[in-house]
């Protein structure tokens, strides 16, 4: 494996050339200006090297856990390494570690050069939800270090993945690639940005470059497969997933990719076989449960609701035993969305809310809880609206409104506006409903109702366009499984009215 050898050598070179790197680290600012990268200030050679390796793993190779380990080594080698603490706090998924490391970064921030201090502020602010501070620091650093590839890529990823500011992220990535057309982490991110911002046709060419840059790594092929699946080109998706598995047969994400592609193609039996392989191929309990949920969904896709419910109940018991609260809630939400009986579906959602309110669960992050709770309440409003249960819909909407008034979370905001749109639809205010549903444009259920509202409002052409958008969505989500097939059917029959069905 040529590429892996290359990375192994890189580790050795970086870790054994400590003296030179360390000297540069101590005189960080002048060296940084010379190389066009943000300076790194630490008194420890080992810390500087470990920080660099953290970036190699996390940013260049996309190996998240390995990168984190190097950042941990960096702050262990130099406990007063402010940027090291900030990077660990920024990249970790553990909220406790993030909070602790962010505080340590601020404690030792005077040890860092002025531009590092800006980077530390950006990292901390993005984690703390201080978006205005983060944007200001980001723009200052992007202007001062236009050729710092890692920094630009990191900022662009935040813009696209966390802020949904795809065009801005794309602009940063395009500029980076103009300076270095072979910088593959940016190629990968740009492809994803394009695929999700209405310029999907530009993504495959970038994926070709990514694959060519790392021919012996499975991830580029896996990414390529995922992009092609999103574009609805299932044979191409399967081909790339298989190539990833040929490079590394244990690359389980591609195994799951194969399964989901078969599920989207309608070959549910084959999908289940492949999901079982993926489930057996992972030791991560949460990942296993995630695949089990997808496995259960294949029965719904086959219109076998009883078998699906039985599967979901089994997975629910396992998720409960494993203490995976959000997954438990997600399972109940799925059962509700696929439940043809409104009263029973609302009971499923009550159980989902109970899952989240179990305060004994220590692994539940407030952000995760709020986002899942918002989706549960949104589903409750949709189900109540479809069953013309006005009182239930309005009471649930009030709960979501209270959440939206205090939460900056985009999913919470989107869920509230969408649910408000559903209630307005029920009240016959179709113009109001359309405006609100447009705030949740990636949710298939919102798109479905938006098309219905547009039809009711006499906006036939717009309704068709919305249906086309919905029909083109190709992903594993339960909302997509519910709303996209009827939209495709409606379009096939050249109907301008949205398809019936969906949530309950």
């Amino acid at each position, binding site marked *: 494996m040529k590429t892996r050898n290359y990375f192994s050598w890189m580790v050795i070179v970086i870790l054994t050339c400590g003296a030179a790197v360390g000297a540069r680290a101590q005189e960080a600012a002048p060296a940084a200006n010379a190389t066009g990268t943000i300076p790194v200030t630490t008194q420890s050679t080992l810390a500087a090297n470990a920080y660099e390796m953290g970036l190699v793993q996390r940013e260049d*190779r*996309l*190996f*998240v*856990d*390995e990168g984190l380990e190097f950042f941990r080594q960096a702050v262990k080698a130099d406990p007063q390494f402010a940027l090291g603490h900030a990077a660990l706090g920024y990249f970790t998924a553990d909220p406790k570690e993030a909070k602790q490391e962010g505080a340590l970064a601020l404690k030792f921030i005077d040890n860092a050069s002025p531009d590092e201090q*800006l980077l530390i502020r950006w990292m901390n602010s993005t984690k703390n*939800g201080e*978006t*205005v501070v983060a*944007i*200001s620091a980001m*723009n*200052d650093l992007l*202007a001062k270090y236009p050729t710092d590839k890692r920094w630009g890529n990191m900022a662009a*990823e935040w813009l*696209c*993945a*966390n*802020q*949904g*500011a*795809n*065009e*801005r992220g794309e602009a940063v990535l395009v500029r980076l690639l103009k300076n270095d057309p072979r910088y593959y982490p940016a190629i990968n*991110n740009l492809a*994803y940005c394009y695929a*999700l*911002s209405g310029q999907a046709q530009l993504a495959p060419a970038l994926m070709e470059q990514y694959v060519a840059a790392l021919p012996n*790594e*499975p*991830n580029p092929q*896996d*990414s390529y497969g*995922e992009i092609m699946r*999103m574009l609805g080109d299932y044979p191409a998706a399967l081909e790339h997933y298989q190539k*990833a598995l040929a490079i590394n047969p*244990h*690359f389980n*994400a*591609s195994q799951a*990719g194969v399964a989901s592609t078969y599920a989207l193609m309608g070959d549910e039996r084959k999908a289940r076989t492949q999901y079982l392989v993926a489930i057996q191929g992972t030791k991560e309990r949460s*990942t296993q449960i995630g695949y089990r949920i997808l496995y259960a969904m294949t029965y719904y896709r086959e219109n076998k609701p009883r078998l699906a419910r039985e599967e979901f109940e089994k997975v629910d018991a396992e998720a409960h035993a494993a203490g995976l609260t959000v997954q438990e809630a997600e399972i109940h939400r799925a059962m509700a969305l696929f439940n043809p009986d409104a009263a029973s579906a609302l009971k499923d959602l009550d159980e989902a809310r109970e899952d989240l309110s179990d305060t004994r669960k220590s692994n539940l992050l407030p952000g995760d809880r709020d*986002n899942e709770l918002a989706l549960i309440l949104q589903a409750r409003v949709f189900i109540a609206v479809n069953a013309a249960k006005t009182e239930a819909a309005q009471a649930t909407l009030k709960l979501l409104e209270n959440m*939206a*008034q205090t*939460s*900056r979370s*985009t*999913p919470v*905001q*989107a869920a509230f*506006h969408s649910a408000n749109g559903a209630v307005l639809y029920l009240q016959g205010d179709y113009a109001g409903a359309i405006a609100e549903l*447009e*705030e*949740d*444009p*990636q949710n298939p259920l919102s798109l479905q109702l938006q098309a219905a509202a547009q039809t009711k409002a006499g906006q036939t052409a717009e309704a068709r366009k919305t249906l086309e958008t919905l029909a083109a969505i190709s*992903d594993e*989500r339960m909302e997509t499984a519910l709303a996209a097939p009827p939209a495709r059917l409606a379009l096939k029959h050249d109907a301008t009215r949205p398809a019936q069905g969906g949530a309950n």
Partner: protein
Amino acid sequence: MGKNAMRNRLWIVCVLVLSVASVAFGTDYAIVVNPANPARAMSLVELAKIFKAKTTIWPDGKGITLVLREPNSPGTKFILERVLGGTFDEEKAVLNDPSRKTTVPVVFAESDDEVMRIVGGNAGAIGVIDVYNITGGVKVVKIDDKQPFDPGYILKGR
């Protein structure tokens, strides 16, 4: 190795869930002043008074200059309607009133960068820009105790 792809999947999920931000919420507009200006917050009513040239100086006595993008740009249209509450044509007339030159002059800039350059170089200037363009050269002022991205922020674009 699997973590590599997992990260891509998380990326996708993030974007699927969060990309509504760019499409649905558009951008938030930020009210910015010179960093030397002690102002940190003001009400929408106070901001409207500046736009209407009814408030002409800051509390420290410095004259106010209003810096906006071209009057026909979608952003300025949105801001005028939100801040002044009337129709765009009515509010444009308020900005173009010749008597303003001696009260609160209005400078129209061609870009957000130019808005920031003017505000950064004029201690009495107040400007409006897309929040994604702010830099350390200007200071963001809260409106009705809210800043961009806060729930209920009045200058949230669509």
